[in-house]
Each structure stands twice: as C-alpha cells, then as structure tokens.
C-alpha cells in the first residue's frame, strides 16, 4: 500500500478549517493552539503561519517535535501529522505566498487587524496518520486537468506569433475552464513593472495599463516569481485600494490607462511566467465568486505557465531569426484622404507620450516607436517598416538583448485599434509591418522631441 503523503490531503491545506497544533515545552507541559494556515510547500514539507509570539512559538524553539491535526473541509476526513520544525522564513516567495493567503483568510473571518503574518514556519512531515477516513461525499467535481492541459498545450504549440499566443491562451482558458476575467501582462526590460498586453471579460481592455512589482497579487507574483492565490476579497490586495501602488515612486508609470480589473474581486490568481532565469510576464485570473480557484487550478496553471513562457521565448527568437529572410506580403497601402482634416499628433519627450487630437494614446517605449514611425513616414514618405530597423535604430534606445519589441508593437497596435482607428499597424510578413493612414497628420513635439 502506498504511504499517505501531503499530496493526498491537499484539500486540508486550503485554510478552510483551521488546523490545531500540539507542542511541548522543555518541562514536558503540552500546549495546543490553532493555526490559521497549514500551507503545502512540497510533498514533504508544510509551513505553519506564525502570527503571534506565544507559548507555541517558545515551545517550537525548545522542542522541534510537533503534532498537527487537520480536517478535510468537505469529507471531514481527519489526519494527524508528525512534524519536525526546520526553520522560519520572514521574506521571499513562500512568505509572500502565505501572506496573501492569510490576508484572504483574515478578511473572510473578520480578523484582518489581528491576523498578520510574521513568518512561515517550515516543518518536515515525518508521518501522516489517517484518524478517520473519508466518510462524507466525494470532493466536489474538479476540472479534468490532465486532459485540459493536453488540449491547452497543443493549442499553444500551434501558435505562430506572440499576439495569437496571448489571445489563444485567454480564449482557451475561458472556453475550457469557464473563467471569465483575466489578463496577460509582460515584464518590462528593467524588471520593475508589468504592462497588460491582452485581457478578457472587462468593459475596457486595459491593454497598456502598468502594474509595478510588489503591487497586488500580480506585482507580488512577479517580484517573487511565485503563484499568488486568494479566495476571499482582501483589501490588502485590491488594486483600487492601492492608490496606484508605486505611482508616486515612478513618475513614468502608465497612469493614463486605468487598470481594467474587477472592482470587488472575491478570488484572484496570479501565475508568474518564468523561462529559465527570466520572468516573461504574469498570467492573471480573477472572479466575482469566492473559492473560484482551488489548489488544482493553481497547480495546473503553473504547469501551463512553463509551456507558455517557453513558447513566448521561442516565438521571440524565431521572429528575430526570420525577420531578415522573410518576404513582404503584398498589400495595398492606404493613402490618406487629403480632404479629411489632419490628425494632430503631439509628442512629449519627457515621458515619450503621444496624444492624437488631444486624446492620450500611449507613452514609454511604444510612444517612442510610434513617434519614430510617423517621422519616417513624413520625412521619407515610407509606410513599410521592419522590426530589424527598429532594433538597430539608436534613437529608440531599445536594449540589445530581450528588447520585447514584438510585445511593444502588439501594445501599440491594440492601443491604436481602440483609440485611433485612422492610424493602424498591419503585419506584412514576419518581422515586417506597415502603417495604414486614413487621414493626413501633423506632427508637433516639445523641443527635445524631434525624431
């Protein structure tokens, strides 16, 4: 018979029913306390939420042998765990992961002012004893994740560029899991913030909105490269409560495009997309329902995230390697109608922001690119461009490695589609695109903005 492991009792580790913990001091006096969170670390370790300096805490330092009692919140199966206290973590991925979960539990139980995580007490699981077998109903039907992952991975592998990859990911998650709201965000080159490139289920797409690292579940997932999942609304992690998080610290943070997320989400899940050592971005899902994302959902999306991050990197490399050899697809350039009033395009070099007819469009790298394209169009009467020439254009100042150019062009294309249909960017081959202009335009820039 297989030995019972933590993987068999994951429902007990969701925080729905508090665990109890027995310790013993040096004099042999036992002690019992409740522990809000017995957190799954890996198949052989749990972490206990350390919230208070108390007798339990002192006992653990004197005698690392602990016993925990857990109840399955659905079946009422009961288990006793023999634990050995190993260490306490007070920062890093595990700590942040538990901090978010505890904030969610505290909010749900009206203990937000009392339950504050001081540390994650990591314990080795020496033995799991079944006290009472499952006597209740079987656990609620979970999604058939193995076959869903197979389908998802097949669909991702069939994508040929970044835009279709992002769109397929969100569409497929919606179709196969029923999740309604979500977005995909890319990490910026400096590793300080993320920008949304695709979304679903919101009145406004929010493409271009930026989230600083450390802000909300998305920013924490990015900073610590760990999944963050909360199943009850917690004001600590609400973007609406965060006063735009680091807006004061970073004057270049995109604040002109509001975060599109739910105003009162009950469940949120942020999954880091990591390829090798590099954070590519974050997949973010949310719901107006409590308990929308269980541990199986998180586990499955962590598996998917590796495929997604690898595919993003592969497509980026493919794009760069093929952009010199590809041919331009034939297409008829749209000639601006001279009878229509010209678009007034204004550029501010301080933050590279672009306004068209006094409406804000974009800033940062994408703003710089658009300004450059329009200047070339005006000076050279040319509407066809290659990614390669942008990469080599020193005036754009793109980093030589990991320039994220494809992502910036997707962002620019989406913003133009939503805000300025008279100017469009159309792909005309791998690594090539053209500007479609329906109206003439007039450029004006502040003194430092001549491109």
């Amino acid at each position, binding site marked *: 018979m297989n030995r019972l492991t933590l993987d068999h009792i994951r429902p007990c580790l969701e925080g729905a029913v508090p665990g*109890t*913990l*027995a*310790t*013993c001091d*040096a004099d*042999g*006096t*036992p*002690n*019992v*306390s*409740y522990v809000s969170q017995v957190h799954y670390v890996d198949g052989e370790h749990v972490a206990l939420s350390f*919230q*208070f300096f*108390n*007798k339990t805490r002192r006992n653990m330092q004197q*005698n690392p*042998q*602990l*016993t*925990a*009692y857990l*109840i399955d*919140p659905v*079946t*009422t199966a*009961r288990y*006793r765990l*023999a634990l050995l206290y190993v260490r306490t973590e007070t920062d890093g991925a595990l700590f942040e992961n538990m901090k978010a979960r505890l904030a969610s539990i505290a909010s749900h*139980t009206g*203990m937000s002012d*009392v*339950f504050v995580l001081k540390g994650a007490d990591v314990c080795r699981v020496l033995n799991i004893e079944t*006290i*009472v077998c499952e*006597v*209740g109903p079987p656990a609620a039907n979970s999604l058939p994740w193995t076959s869903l992952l197979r389908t998802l991975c097949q669909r991702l592998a069939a994508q040929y560029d970044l835009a279709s990859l992002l769109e397929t990911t969100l569409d497929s998650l919606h179709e196969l899991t029923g999740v309604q709201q979500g977005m995909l965000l890319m990490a910026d080159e400096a590793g300080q913030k993320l920008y949304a490139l695709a979304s679903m289920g919101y009145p406004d797409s929010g493409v271009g909105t930026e989230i600083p690292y450390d802000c909300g579940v998305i920013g924490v997932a990015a900073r610590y490269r760990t999944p963050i999942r909360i199943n009850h609304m917690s004001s600590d992690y609400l973007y609406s409560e965060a006063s735009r998080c680091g807006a004061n610290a970073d004057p270049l943070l995109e604040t002109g495009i509001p975060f599109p997320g739910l105003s009162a989400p009950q469940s949120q899940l942020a999954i880091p997309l990591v390829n090798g050592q590099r954070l590519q971005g974050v997949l973010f899902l949310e719901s107006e329902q409590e308990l929308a994302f269980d541990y199986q959902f998180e586990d499955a999306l962590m598996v998917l995230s590796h495929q997604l991050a690898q595919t993003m990197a592969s497509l980026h490399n493919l794009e760069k390697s093929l952009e010199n050899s590809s041919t331009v697809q034939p297409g008829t350039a749209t000639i601006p109608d001279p009878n229509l009033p010209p678009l007034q395009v204004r550029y501010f070099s301080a933050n590279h922001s672009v306004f068209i007819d006094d409406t804000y469009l974009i800033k940062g790298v994408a703003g710089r690119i658009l300004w450059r394209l329009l200047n070339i169009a005006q000076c050279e009467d040319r509407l066809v461009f290659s990614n390669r020439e942008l990469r080599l254009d020193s005036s754009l100042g793109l980093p030589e490695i990991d320039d994220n150019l494809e992502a910036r062009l997707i962002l620019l294309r989406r913003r133009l589609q939503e805000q300025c249909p008279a100017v469009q960017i159309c792909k005309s081959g791998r690594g090539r695109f053209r500007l479609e202009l329906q109206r003439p335009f007039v450029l004006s820039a502040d003194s430092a903005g001549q491109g």
Partner: protein
Amino acid sequence: MSAPTWLSTDDAQFLTRGLSISLASRDLRHVPSLTRAFACRYSDDGRQLILILSRSQSSDLLRDVAACGELAVVVTEPSTHRTLQVKGSDAIITDLVADDLAVVDQSRAHFGTDILPLGFDSDFNQRLFAFDPGDLCRILMTPTDVFQQTPGPGAGERIGPQS
C-alpha cells in the same frame, strides 16, 4: 453538579457550551500527542474538567495521558475565535457515566449551530460527531492553569484558576 469555582461564571459556561475542543499530551520523550474531544463538562463537585472522546481516534493521547497525566485542553468558538486553554497534570481515563451521551448530544447541537454561518452544514457536523458509543471514554483533570487564548491583545494571559 456544582459550578466550578476556579474561573468566572462566563468562562465556566463557555467551556462546556459545545464548541471545538482539542486535547494534547506528550510521551516520555516529550513528543506531543493530539486529538479532538466531543464534549466537555464538570465533575459533580465542580473541581474537575471532564472530556469525552473517542478511544479509537485518540490512542496515542490516551497512552500518553495514562503514562504522564499531563493534559492541555483548548476550547474555541469558531464563529468568534474566542478561545481558552486549560492545563492539568493529574489526568486520568475512565469509562462513560450514564448521562455523558446526553452531554455529547447537546455539544453536537450547539457546535452545529455555531459553524453553520461559516459554511459548514449539518451533514458536516453529523459526520464530525459520528461515533460508536461503546468507543467513547472520559478523561478527568484538575485544572492548574487557565489561559485566555483568543487571538489578539491579551492572548496567553493566565486567568486562572481563581482562588
């Protein structure tokens, strides 16, 4: 049955109301043992706390109590987090007496009412309290320490026994 004199009337009523009850002891090498009890009541003279629990679900703890007599009892009200811990060193194990099952029934009913608003229905409660009456036993203990253990300021404060 006399009311206990070693803690306030309110706390005395709280302990036996029918809440979540956990017990800990330890073996000769100070490895803690842990189980749950179904009900808590007082001895006729009010001087001892009596816990009613399943033998088959508590074999380690019963072995340890028999060996050392050390016992820690935590009683908590899930809906409010109000918690008390009682400790003693003279715990002994005995068989049930006639009206113990009625006490367990009262405890089950009250506990079910308390956890219902938290999303745990009566089926959950019935399963949690499922037992074979022949499997139950009681532990008697004279309290030597009572601690307030509700999370927040004052947690860990010793509040008894009162003289």
